[in-house]
């Protein structure tokens, strides 16, 4: 085929179409990491169905020197390794794009596209010749196409080879086999094919950033936050969080002398039991958490109310997925905001943290335990599948060694012995937070009965109306205190004075910077506020009050954060304009641009002549 293909450097999208379970994941991850090692940022996403075997799975890598974090949309090079999805995969390629396929069998007429350059590499044939073991023949096809891509996209082969050496350090036979497979693809392609117009060129745009998924980051945060008890029940997309906690604990929390564990992980029989264990451990003074997703949160409702009312610290990582019901278990959404904020029966509300990426998942993963102890209440860390299960290029994890774990108002045996007044539900200093004791603290003082029924300030059972109201009002005061303890919003002003603003939270931030840059080019100037927690710090309603129109971008159908803002801050509904995306796929900058752009034009918010987009 002689047509000229796309020519782009450090700005294109490669998509791998694989069969789930074929061993492609590690080769694809090596591909993304090799580009990072060359100093060029990537934004990568797995797209996978919920079945394990024989089903399609895709990995999309956006090579983006500008450092944008969202999906771009469209594909410039498709690595088509799954015959089942061939047709749709080929259709997705941009005009002038490329198609890499296994040329062991000739491509039948009409299977490719006239406006796409098809590149055949006899991967199966090469591996059949080189490897005897049938399992290896299958597995090393992936490494072989990595070799081909290295040549075709001008990815430095030494970079990939040194990564292989790191990965298989001390496992010489494996390393040799991998190297051989890589060379198989690389050498064959160098001999038979010219490099493409899509090129990776070395830059220095990655810095000390790391490439990691949010579930691992949050789990590591839990380790640093001092969590010792994890009770969970498997559910996508949260499972890898509990598994990562186990992995990190094995590394970081084993007593060297005895081999014994400074942690306990229990796979419970269901989510009712997992939250029950967390509540029991929290009541008893250990830092405990569960990891779950929407359906699990639904099952935990009764216990969440108990923990709220009895004031027991607990941390819940909610890795949100497509809902309601089983919904789209392998797709992303931000659809548990309301059900988490007001979880359980009766008048309840709970602090929520909204990390925007794995770095914040780590920070908030640790912080949540301090907040839960300080506020003596369940705290939710609201991740989603996009943050939790995707690898992100993100700032490295940092820890200040002078930091100590904040255990909150815990009355000690010494204080009790000294005769300090202990009322479990007594507000001693106006912040609404009482002191607590843990069981076994003191022989005669500080024991009390924890219950879900109403009680007075000294934890004595009562159904007296005034005592009940007194307690409920104190709980509100405590929630007021939480406003100043949770992370505040991140506010940025537009380069030009703006009457309108945009608000978002969590993974919605990924494409936001890119879309705002494009909107500014079109004359739409917006101030920005990223909300990081509920309850809303005072700065949040103040920011909204300072603007005429505020777009609230989120990934659910019912504009849940908007509803929470309206309900909690008494804002006029017209002012908050929903911008929604909830088909389960990660949000693209293109989508936000067009949605906000259109609404902004209708509202007359376009200022001056649209600037001419640079290059």
């Amino acid at each position, binding site marked *: 085929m002689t047509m000229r293909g796309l020519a782009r450097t450090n700005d294109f999208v490669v998509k791998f179409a694989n069969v789930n379970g074929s061993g492609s994941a590690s080769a694809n991850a090596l591909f993304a990491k090799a580009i990072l*090692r060359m100093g060029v940022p990537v934004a990568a996403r797995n797209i996978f169905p919920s079945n394990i075997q024989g089903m399609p799975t895709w990995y999309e890598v956006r090579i983006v020197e500008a450092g944008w974090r969202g999906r771009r949309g469209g594909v410039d090079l498709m690595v088509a390794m799954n015959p089942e999805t061939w047709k749709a995969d080929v259709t997705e390629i941009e005009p002038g794009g490329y198609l890499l396929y296994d040329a062991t069998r000739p491509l039948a007429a009409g299977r490719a596209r006239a406006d796409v350059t098809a590149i055949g590499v006899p991967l199966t044939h090469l591996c059949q010749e080189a490897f005897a073991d049938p399992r290896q023949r299958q597995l090393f096809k992936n490494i072989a196409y990595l070799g081909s891509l290295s040549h075709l996209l001008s990815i430095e082969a030494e970079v990939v080879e040194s990564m292989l050496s790191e990965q298989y350090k001390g496992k010489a036979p494996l390393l040799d086999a991998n190297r051989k497979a890589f060379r198989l693809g690389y050498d064959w392609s160098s001999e038979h094919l010219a490099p493409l117009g899509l090129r990776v060129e070395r830059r220095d745009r990655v810095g*000390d*950033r*790391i*490439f*990691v998924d949010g579930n691992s980051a949050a789990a590591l945060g839990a380790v*640093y936050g*001092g969590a*010792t*008890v994890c*009770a969970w029940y498997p559910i996508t997309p949260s499972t890898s969080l509990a598994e990562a906690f186990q992995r990190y604990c094995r590394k*970081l*929390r084993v007593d060297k002398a005895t081999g*014994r*564990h*400074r*942690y*306990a992980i*229990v796979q419970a*029989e*269901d989510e*009712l*039991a997992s939250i*029950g*264990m*967390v*509540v*029991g*451990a*929290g*009541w*008893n*003074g*250990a830092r*405990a958490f569960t990891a779950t997703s929407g359906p699990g949160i639904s099952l935990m409702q*009764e*216990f969440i109310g*108990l923990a709220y009312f009895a004031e027991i610290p607990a941390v819940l990582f909610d890795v949100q997925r497509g809902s309601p019901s089983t919904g789209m278990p392998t797709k992303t959404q931000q659809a548990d905001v309301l059900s988490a904020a007001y979880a359980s029966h009766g008048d309840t509300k709970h602090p929520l943290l909204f990390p925007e990426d794995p770095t914040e998942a780590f920070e908030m993963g640790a912080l949540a335990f301090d907040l839960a102890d300080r506020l003596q209440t369940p705290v939710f860390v609201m991740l989603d599948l996009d943050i939790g299960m995707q690898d992100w290029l993100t700032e*490295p*994890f*940092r*820890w200040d*060694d002078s930091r*100590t774990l904040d255990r909150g108002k815990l009355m000690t*045996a*010494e204080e009790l012995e000294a005769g300090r007044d202990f009322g479990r539900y007594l507000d001693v200093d106006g912040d609404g937070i009482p002191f607590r*004791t*843990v*069981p*076994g*603290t*003191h*022989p*005669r003082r500080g*024991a009390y*009965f*924890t219950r*879900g*029924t109403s009680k007075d300030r000294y934890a004595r*059972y009562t159904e007296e109306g005034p005592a009940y109201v007194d307690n409920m009002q104190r709980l509100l005061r405590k929630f007021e205190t939480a406003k100043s303890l949770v992370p505040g919003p991140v506010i940025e002003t537009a380069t030009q004075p703006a009457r309108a603003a945009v608000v978002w939270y969590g993974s919605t931030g990924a494409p936001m910077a890119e879309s705002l840059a494009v909107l500014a080019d079109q004359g739409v100037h917006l101030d920005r506020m990223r909300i990081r927690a509920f309850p809303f710090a005072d700065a949040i309603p103040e920011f909204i009050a300072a603007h005429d129109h505020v777009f609230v971008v989120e990934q659910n159908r019912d504009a849940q954060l908007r509803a929470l803002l309206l309900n909690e801050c008494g804002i006029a509904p017209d002012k908050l304009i929903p911008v929604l995306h909830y088909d389960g796929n990660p949000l693209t900058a293109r989508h936000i641009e067009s949605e906000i752009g259109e609404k902004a034009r209708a509202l007359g918010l376009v200022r001056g002549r649209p600037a001419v987009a640079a290059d």
Partner: protein
Amino acid sequence: MTFLAKPKIHHPSLPVNALGFTRRDYEGPVSTLCAGCGHDSISAAVIQAFFELAVPPHRVAKLSGIGCSSKTPTYFLGQSHGFNTVHGRMPSVLTGANLANRSLLYLGVSGDGDSASIGLGQFAHLMRRNVDMTYLVENNGVYGLTKGQFSATADKGSRSKRGAANDDEPIDLVMMALTLGASYVARGFSGDKDQLVPLIVGAVRHKGAALIDVVSPCVAFNNHPGSTKSYDYVRAHNEAVNRLDFMPERAPITTSQAPGETRDIVMHDGSTMRLKRLDAEYDPSDKVGAMAYLESHRARGVVVTGLLYVAENASDMHDALQTVDAPLNQLPDAELVPGSAALAGINASLR
């Protein structure tokens, strides 16, 4: 600084235990249950058992679900922390509490509705996890607190106070606990304190999950002639397989019984539990035998009480999880937080 339990000053004539505590130190506020409720007799047995065990009251954590039975922890061990959790979920909360601090003694109190109906799943999983605890089911075959509905332990054919017959098969928690791996399984009767107190003492001393299903008549809703959980029925149909006694640690073992009638069981804390066999055939170390015995007696309408099964040298959940000896809730920051150097290594591995 450590704090040793110092008993309050009491009337010198009150008997004291090895720690100097009187029975009163193990009591709680006055019960608000119906006069004559079997549950109150069980509370009295708990008080007596802990007095005899001579443990500092504040080293006990008592947890329960919801129900009249689950209210009873208010009425004993007033100096212990207590937790009325939610209906049927005491097992998970207690499991979590035990994970957090393995150095306390855990007493779980539940009802037949709480454990055999809404909480059957959690009951089962606690037993199979072998959480180190004493699990008391105050079993009246009825929902007392919600006024007399059948529970899942009501015998088939038994009649409610209003005359309705129960057509469903009963769940026998003792049989379930046996199949699920509980390492101490007993049945008691609230009306037989002499038998119940040592059963509780043995359960507390035992390492691992110890279940005592205590038949406990509800005078308000299930003590009429049609009921198989009434005082009269149980008294008329009870067959005790053994009686327990306790030998304090290192006390000389003297035996007055004829050989073949007693059996000594060494507990993990070194003390000895002495079983007086009432039925010479009965061997509490034979799980399969226990099941067959229970089943054949049940078929004849006989309620078997006593220590039905005990595994010596049992292990518990912490052994399986390989947790450190120190309670997890007391580990200092330095043992929990790996610090910035370890983090730098992790960052490096992610580039």
